[in-house]
């Protein structure tokens, strides 16, 4: 391994170091606040390290990793999401749990797993990344173990993830049988020219199960609502953003390497999955009264939209999907941020009644939630609109008419339940409850400021998407 290759891995090493730093700090009995600050600093170092290594990219570390602009983009979105999740976590866990510190170990490990997925070019690294991510998530989901649903949802996730991992392994084995290689590019080269054999197709179909499960696509979506509901709100935000970004990144890289979109059969399978996800996600969310479950269904639909950008398998598709994921991450983070900040000691703020008349009590929070819901619904001048628009454009350019039409129609259905929440926000207020003095004024302020910044980002990306698109394009040139 040359120096440059080692250097290129620096951000990932810093990220891995973050967990170790946290462990050491716990051993030294430092306070939650110190750990929070240290964790945040480690994330900042990761970002700095990414900036530092930018010039030497791309680097291929045979046979497991490749670090290029593509990976940098997806890792960037993951780090960004985790940074926000970390900020949101402080107040949430400080108020609920006597041992909030170990949470950060798991969070950074999960992040590392997701980040490894973005740079893997080999089945081994893929599987390692996926398992680091999943194992951390089992514990994260069940972290508030005294709560009713926590253990249940953690177990559900564990069993289903184990099941689908088994399918993934079997799929990989089939690939290996067919091509004699576990490297994406080598598999692609073996397959080039020749018609893919039946084992290859079967292997792919089995892999689709694992990927579909992680991305919560229909028909592997059934866990989503229960887990979203049972997990602590910041962890839900993590599942909705970082974990999905990582899995989607590896799916994209793999499909580009093996020219997955060339196969009409697989194209149809993915179209079918996308269409089913869009329809079912939106319909399930329609009359949902629990906001965490509602966001779970909405995320099913949104991943369906995202798959439309994945279908063409071109540069434009990648651009659209990165932008979409970024916009989606900001939006969903601000939505879960509101859920987090409104949650009480006993219960997450998941019932819609909590939000009744929020605007009259806490106008800033209501505004952030309203903007993020508008963005999820794809109303113009928000990031969500433009993201959906370029996905549509990509789909239309490649004549994927059926998914595109379904996208448009289901967006209309989606509008209903987003607007339903927004109208609840502005409904006449119930009697004002006594104002609690925030326990941690500084972190309270930081959380508010973060949410405000997220809201501004949603609007700015919606009005001036040009620079962001241009930035994405430049990063994708590094290959």
């Amino acid at each position, binding site marked *: 391994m040359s120096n440059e290759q080692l250097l290129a891995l620096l951000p990932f090493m810093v990220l891995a170091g973050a967990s170790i730093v946290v462990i050491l700090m716990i051993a030294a009995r430092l306070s939650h606040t110190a750990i929070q600050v240290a964790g945040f600093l480690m994330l900042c170092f990761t970002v700095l390290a990414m900036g530092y290594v930018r010039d030497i990219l791309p680097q291929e570390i045979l046979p497991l990793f490749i670090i290029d602009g593509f990976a940098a983009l997806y890792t960037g979105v993951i780090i960004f999401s985790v940074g926000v999740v970390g900020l949101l976590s402080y107040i949430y866990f400080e108020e609920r749990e006597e041992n909030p510190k170990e949470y950060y170990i798991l969070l950074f490990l999960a992040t590392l797993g997701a980040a490894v997925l973005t740079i893997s070019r080999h089945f081994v690294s893929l599987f390692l990344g996926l398992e680091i991510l999943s194992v951390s998530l089992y514990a994260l989901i069940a972290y508030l173990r005294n709560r009713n649903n926590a253990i249940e949802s953690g177990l*559900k996730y564990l069993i*289903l993830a184990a099941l689908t991992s088994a399918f993934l392994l079997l799929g990989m084995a089939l690939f290996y049988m067919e091509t004699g290689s576990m490297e994406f590019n080598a598999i692609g080269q073996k397959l080039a020219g020749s018609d893919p054999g039946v084992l290859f197709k079967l292997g792919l179909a089995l892999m689709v199960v694992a990927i579909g499960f992680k991305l919560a696509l229909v028909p592997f979506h059934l866990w989503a609502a229960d887990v979203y509901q049972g997990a602590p709100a910041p962890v839900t935000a993590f599942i909705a953003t970082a974990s999905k970004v990582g899995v989607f990144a590896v799916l994209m890289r793999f499909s580009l390497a093996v020219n997955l979109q060339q196969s009409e059969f697989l194209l149809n*399978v993915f179209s079918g999955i996308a269409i089913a996800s869009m329809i*079912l996600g939106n319909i*399930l969310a329609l*009359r949902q009264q629990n906001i965490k479950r509602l966001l779970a269904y909405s995320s099913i639909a949104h991943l369906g939209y995202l798959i439309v950008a994945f279908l063409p398998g071109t540069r434009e598709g990648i651009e659209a999907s990165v932008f979409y994921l970024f916009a989606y991450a900001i939006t969903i983070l601000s939505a879960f941020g509101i859920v987090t900040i409104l949650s009480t000691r006993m219960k997450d703020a998941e019932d819609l009644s909590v939000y009744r008349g929020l605007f009259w009590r806490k106008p800033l929070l209501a505004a952030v939630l309203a903007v993020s819901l508008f963005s999820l619904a794809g109303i113009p001048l928000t990031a969500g609109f433009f993201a959906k628009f370029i996905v549509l454009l990509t789909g239309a350019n490649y004549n994927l008419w059926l998914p595109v039409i379904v996208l448009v129609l289901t967006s209309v259905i989606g509008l209903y339940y987003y607007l339903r929440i927004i109208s609840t926000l502005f409904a006449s207020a119930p009697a004002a409850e006594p104002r609690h003095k925030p326990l941690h004024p500084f972190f309270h302020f930081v959380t508010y400021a973060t949410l405000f910044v997220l809201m501004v980002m949603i609007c700015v990306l919606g009005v001036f998407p040009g620079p962001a698109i241009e930035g994405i394009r430049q990063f994708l040139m590094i290959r």
Partner: protein
Amino acid sequence: MLRRSLASLGMTNTSSRHPEPSEASVRDRRRIKERIMENYLYLIPALPLAGFLILSLLGKNLSKNLIPVIGAGSVIGSAIAVILLAIQYDPENPVRQILWQWFSSEDLSVAISLSVDALTIVFLFVITFVGALIHIYSAAFMREDRDYARFFASMNLFICSMLLLVMADNLVLLYLGWEGVGLCSYLLIGFWYEKPENSRAANKAFTITRIGDTAMLIGLFMLFQEFRTLYIPDILNNVSQHFESGSATLTTIALLLVGGAVGKSAQLPLQSWLPDAMAGPSPVSALIHAATMVTAGVYLIARMHGIFVLSPEAMAIVAIIGAITLIIAGCSALVQTDIKRILAYSTISQIGYMFLALGVGAWSAAIFHFFTHAFFKALLFLAAGAIIESLHHEHSIFKMGGLRKKMPLIFYTFLAGAASLAALPFITSGFFSKEQILGYSFGAVNGNPILWVVGITGAFITAIYTTRLMVVVFWGEEKTHVSHLPGPAMTLPLVVLAILSIAVGFIEWPHNLMHVAVFSDYVQNVLPATVERENIAPPLVLQGIAIFMTLFGIYVGYMNCYRKPIWKANNYQTPLFQSLRNFWFKGWLFDDLYNNVFVKPFLFITTVNRKDIIDKIYTGISNGASQLHRMFSVSQNGSLRWYIGGVLAGILIIVTIQMIV
């Protein structure tokens, strides 16, 4: 900002070395002069816009003394800018400033760009100068109002939109201004929104002008389809190569534009909103519904003259619309009792003259009449507002009376305005502008004796109702006590406008009497000259008849109103006359006509279709979606084995499909 740009320009001037004033340096200086003008062109609409923003955002927190300073100050500022611009203006080089690209999409590229030529300057001058006077007047007039800031905010937004309308050099920006003034008109007619009839009047004005706007929008679409651009100079330059004279498409476009103009300028058949628009405060009537917005239609036709020149039919229709409107509105003005409604009908009638002039191709005469009309009609409205306020909000002229002694200043200024409206020969501006229109309605190639006769009749009627208004309001006995006299902030604009109402006429004399044609020379670069027929009656005879008719009208009005108050005399009590009077009083029953032809059938259809049939489709979709939601919700039962079953079913389906395929 301005000074800084001047300084920087000065530096560039010294650095470009020209030791002695050569031709090049003269050209240089001219170029620099232009550049200075270009640099501050945007200030003209930006100042009122800034005023609007400040007043609407901070209005509630500003003191009552600061509000008029911002509201009127911004307009005065842009008036000063316009005057500076007019001084520097070089007719050879129209000025253009592109601020930024608004949007562009394939062929359609729209810039926020302003440009100024002589026609624009005339409008700019009237808008900002008369606007500034009216704002000063309003500072005193509206002082006691609860929504002082809202009033000035709307007025400033209006000025900004109107300036955009006349400075725009593409039709999209023009349309933005066009809709902006419509919006402000709506807001200001309904300014006292607590009274339902005011809101109703505002809705009526908005709805009726929308009809015209829609026609205009279609016209713009067609223009774009034909020319692939909406940049006005390009359209005007290419129109003659693109179309033959009298082409059907071009006539359609022209008529659609006329539709917009007719709606905005309250001409037949969309005139019925303007009398009701008098529900707004008097300064609003003076500014929007007399001096500026209602003449936007005139501006539009004059601006797009290249299209109309090639379409004689459209021109003829414009002339006929103007002729009919001026008579209809004049007759209605004869019998009104509300002072502001009299003036409103008179406005409709005077704009009818402008349309008549446009229709016969007397472009400069139309704009000149706009110019003089803006002064004297704004004056009349402001004076009427002062009277109304002093008489405890009394609108009926028959409850006024005897104000000549009580309010002498108002009397003299009103007299100046009324004389100008009646076109009293040789001493009023109205005479000079109307005389031109009458002369061309006979003498221009598109003119004919019938139009001339109609115009003369209109002048006769105008003289009668003006005299009636004057006599009833200012002579006779005092019927309502004058509570207080208007202060200097209200009288100063009146005096200035009164002087202008008299004086501005002298810049343009009938060409057979004296060779003074400042105004038509000024606009000759922009508007084509009027083509006259040959072998017609000597102008002196026509002028003589016109003067005679005016004086005769004044005499008739005087006899009827002063000697024996007109509507009380026995010989007017016959049923026939009463019904005619009623017919005119209600504006020729156009409201009832539209009510029966459009509103009632529409309401009938809506009642029939109360349970909207089309709605059934949507309720069906939403019911279906809810039904599906219930069905699929069953799948989310929380049972792990069912979830695993789901995953396995998924993989089975995929594998099966693969095997089959």
